[in-house]
């Protein structure tokens, strides 16, 4: 081929080999499904349903492609989708605001814009890591959904019939297929062309490939990233409106773990979590694949079960299906595997090399991959002047990174006392707070190591639930003795930690994506274990792990004499003692031993630490394992304390724990964090929760709003960390003012 010919035929930007492969896989999978379960997959009805349900996921995936190509992440899409549907219901439903259809739709789109803008501004201008900013927005959005629905469904079928123009969008049209498919096709076309063929798209690829080079080339990278977040949120809002049009109502469960489905779809579609790669066509096919997989898993597959009736064995056709909540296990696994595809298969050209090897040809030349390092978030804030050295007395304390947490703890406690002097000071209340504190503090201990080493663990709450449900399952279903149950709980939690550590350290993936996958896997497994069963009522011997010291002594028929010792034993729980013991050991190791210093060195500058002969992989591995171990212990204790396993155990705990570490002086960029600070941070979060639940003169804050509030606290804590501790915004302002003051003086003189 001559040069001229190769120039004339430009390579396609819209589709490539990856998309072809996906399409073939999809067809094979569908045919396989039709073969195994013809009743479900064999009909055009089913195919139509697949396309219809993929439409909404696909539309969000189109928006998400822009964000991921930018090397960002938007975890808030699922909750945006749900929130828009709920807000639409609140605005439109006759039982609430009863607004007109146009007003409602416009307000919903406005809401989507605002969420996208908040995400974008947080990530770009305020420099909050994308995963932490959008995760917080996810939790806040979910809190709003619960608060606005009060956990109940809202339906408005009667009023919907008055506005056929809008609600027809969710229904089957004259040509026999659903209008949502048309909307999906239009969005996908526009998205594909914009990303592949326009300056907007080229700017997106440049920003994702090398943000510094893009900025030097005059590309407004902040605007490019904010724009992607806007597109993503608006796509989610559009999908939310489509679901409202289809269902003419909303339940609070809309969009739960929707971000998982969408991100998995985009990554399977060939986009790189490391930025700079991705095509809209691939993302759409990925969405089809994930939705198909989801349907297969939910529908189950037919099996023949042999049932004995009397002496006769009868073959009965049955359907083997997964319990509710187990599907995220597979989607989470899929996410982790899909994330590994890009760096390990595509970038290393495994397919091309294998093909060359089969034909006995030399392998194709390797890509230049030196410039793109697979590293987790390792940016450092700007330098601060070292205030601590020049400060004296009270100043020395205020310059400590954990001062904020310690002061807040005292202030919050005094606030509680002022609001309810009759109740707050009460022993029972104090120890109720202490018990809540124990669980959070235990998780925080491990997370402090992970954050100080420059990683993150988003799965701690889910690992807590996994360990608890495993222990409960062994106790109740398998009738195991307490020691076995504890061992199995530990084993399950450790296995989760091991997977986290191997994927993060061994495969060099960013910690947030590996632990995000584990977040869904562990929570799904926990739901799977308890499916359909009330896991409660087992030997009291196990429950001693969560009892007060005196109860344990009584269990072994030891009764203490009246006096101080007995009073203490009556109020102190064994888990609190255990937590303090773990905290003491972990705190000493972190502050005073070489291992602790290695953790800080790794978090501060991983390359310098490696040059100095520190095995940074080992440090990060052990930290992630420790975080899982602490969460596991908290889960085992949680089950013992409640004498049952509740599937919502540990929910939002990852949010609490990360907030606690950051408030306590940790940096989201790594290298900082102390045990005292983290414990104080955990106290702050516990007290905030306790205060919000406090009934002051007949008014109590609804439970649903509390998570919104905690999410706000996390964002504020991260912002304080970045802008006050790292950039020293106040110091700069003071310096600026000081410089201005003498200047004005001289002009007067």
């Amino acid at each position, binding site marked *: 081929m001559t040069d001229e010919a190769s120039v004339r035929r430009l390579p396609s930007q819209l589709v490539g080999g990856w998309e072809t492969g996906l399409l073939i896989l999809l067809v094979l999978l569908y045919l396989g499904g039709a073969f195994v379960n013809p009743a479900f997959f064999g009909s055009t009805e089913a195919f139509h349903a697949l396309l219809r349900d993929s439409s909404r996921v696909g539309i969000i995936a189109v928006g998400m492609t822009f964000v991921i190509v930018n090397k960002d992440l938007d975890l808030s899409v699922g909750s945006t989708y749900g929130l828009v549907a709920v807000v639409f219901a609140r605005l439109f439903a006759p039982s609430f605001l009863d607004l007109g259809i146009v007003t409602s739709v416009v307000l919903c789109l406005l809401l989507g814009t605002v969420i996208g803008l908040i995400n974008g501004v947080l990530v770009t201008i305020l420099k909050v890591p994308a995963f932490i900013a959008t995760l917080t927005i996810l939790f806040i959005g979910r809190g709003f959904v619960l608060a606005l629905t009060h956990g109940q469904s809202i339906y408005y079928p009667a009023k919907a019939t008055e506005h056929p123009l809008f609600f027809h969008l969710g229904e089957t049209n004259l040509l026999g297929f659903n209008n949502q498919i048309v909307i999906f096709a239009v969005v996908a076309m526009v998205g594909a062309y914009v990303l592949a063929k326009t300056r907007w798209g080229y700017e997106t690829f440049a920003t994702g490939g090398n943000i510094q080079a893009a900025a030097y080339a005059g590309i407004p990278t902040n605007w490019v990233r904010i724009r992607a977040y806007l597109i993503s949120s608006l796509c989610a809002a559009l999908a939310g409106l489509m679901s409202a049009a289809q269902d003419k109502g909303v339940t609070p469960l809309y969009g739960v773990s929707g971000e998982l489905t969408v991100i998995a779809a985009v990554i399977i579609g060939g986009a790189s979590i490391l930025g700079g790669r991705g095509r809209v066509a691939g993302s759409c096919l990925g969405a089809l694949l994930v939705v198909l997989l989801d349907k297969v898993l939910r529908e189950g597959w037919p099996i023949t079960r042999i049932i004995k009736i009397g002496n006769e064995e009868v073959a009965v056709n049955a359907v083997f299906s997964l319990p509710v909540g187990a599907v995220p296990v597979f989607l989470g696994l899929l996410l982790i595997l899909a994330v590994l595809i890009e760096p390990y298969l595509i970038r290393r050209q495994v397919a091309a090399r294998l093909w060359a090897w089969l034909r006995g040809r030399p392998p194709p030349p390797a890509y230049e991959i030196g410039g793109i390092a697979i590293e987790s978030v390792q940016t*450092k804030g700007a*330098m*601060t*002047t*070292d205030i601590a*050295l020049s400060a004296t007395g009270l100043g020395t304390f205020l310059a400590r990174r954990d001062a904020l947490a310690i002061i807040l703890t005292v202030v919050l406690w005094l606030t509680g006392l002022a609001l309810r002097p009759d109740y707050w000071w009460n022993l029972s209340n104090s120890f109720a707070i202490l018990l809540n504190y124990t669980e959070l503090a235990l998780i925080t201990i491990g997370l402090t190591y992970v954050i100080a080493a420059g990683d993150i663990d988003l799965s701690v709450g889910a690992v807590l639930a996994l360990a608890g449900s495993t222990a409960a399952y062994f106790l109740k279903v398998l009738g195991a003795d307490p020691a076995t149950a504890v061992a199995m709980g530990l084993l399950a939690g450790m296995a989760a930690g091991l997977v986290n550590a191997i994927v993060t350290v061994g495969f060099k993936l960013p910690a947030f994506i590996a632990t995000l996958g584990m977040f869904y896997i562990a929570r799904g497994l926990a739901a799977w274990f308890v499916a359909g069963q009330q896991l409660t009522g087992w030997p009291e011997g196990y429950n001693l792990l969560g009892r007060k010291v005196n109860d344990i002594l009584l269990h072994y028929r030891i009764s203490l004499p009246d006096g101080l010792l007995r009073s203490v034993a009556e109020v102190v729980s064994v888990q609190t003692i255990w937590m303090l013991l773990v905290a003491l050991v972990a705190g000493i190791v972190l502050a*005073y*031993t*070489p291992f602790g*210093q*290695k953790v*800080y*060195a790794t*978090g*501060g*500058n991983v*390359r*310098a*630490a490696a*040059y*100095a*002969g*520190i095995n940074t992989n080992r440090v990060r591995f052990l930290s992630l394992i420790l975080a899982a171990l602490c969460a596991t212990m908290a889960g085992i204790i949680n089950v013992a304390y409640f004498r049952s396993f509740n599937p919502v155990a540990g929910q939002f705990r990852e949010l609490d724990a990360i907030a606690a570490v950051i408030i306590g002086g940790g*940096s989201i960029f*790594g*290298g*900082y964090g102390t045990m005292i600070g983290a414990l104080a941070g955990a106290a702050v979060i516990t007290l905030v929760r306790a205060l919000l639940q406090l009934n002051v003169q007949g008014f109590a804050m609804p439970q649903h709003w509390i998570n919104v509030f905690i999410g706000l606290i996390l964002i504020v804590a991260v912002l304080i960390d970045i802008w006050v501790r790292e950039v020293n915004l106040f110091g700069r302002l003071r310096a600026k003012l000081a410089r201005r003051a003498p200047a004005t003086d001289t002009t007067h003189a």
Partner: protein
Amino acid sequence: MLDAARPAPIVEMRGIEKAFGAVQALRNVDLVLYPGEILGLVGDNSAGKSTLMKILTGAYQRDAGQVFVAGQPVHFRSPHESRDVGIEMIYQDFALCGNMDVGQNIFLGRWPRRGFFINRRKMYAEADTVLKRLKVDVNSVFQKVESLSGGRQQSVAIARAISFEPRVVILDEPTANLSVMATERLLETMLELKKQGVAQIIISHRLIDIFAVGDRVMVLKRGENVGDRFVKDTDDREVLEIIVSGTRENAQTADEARAI
């Protein structure tokens, strides 16, 4: 005559070859370094300066040739092995942990310990001694490195290097990120090290720095030796000429050039 007065070389590299794929980065390169000598290694971009140094420290493996340290043949597989025989490299970006203080950085990865714990008293005392020996002023060993200026950070990196009691220190573009004042201070520090008998190799684009403190300057061009001069016998014009138009055929060693 000159050779007899000179001690045995601390580092000698002979006939070093290195190729990256189809690119021949080094062709039969020789290098000699004597104790207490400051050798400037200069050349255009892609001349092979950094590659040669990385082979010396063990970061890269040579294809052919020999390396002797104090007369012993060596083959380092990693920078840690070269550190064990007293060769230290200071990287352009210093490789320090900004979140830790000066003392902790000087002893990064090998903090002195007492039992299970870090011996902080000893660590800070020794860090202070090392800094005093360098005659650099860093306010306090308790200061976080990220709050130090670029020049001070480099002082910490050098202090870290010499705390290993090295015989050879390699500085990769040490003045690239420094202010004029900081450069002055660095050059003083290098002379101080020389007084203590530490041999130094300085990779630099700034000939002026090499002429200020160097004893000898060696020029590489496209992976080959093209000349070697004593600083006393030459000037920057001649060195520039060698960098631009020197060839292997008319390359002279420092001794040959002096003999003329």
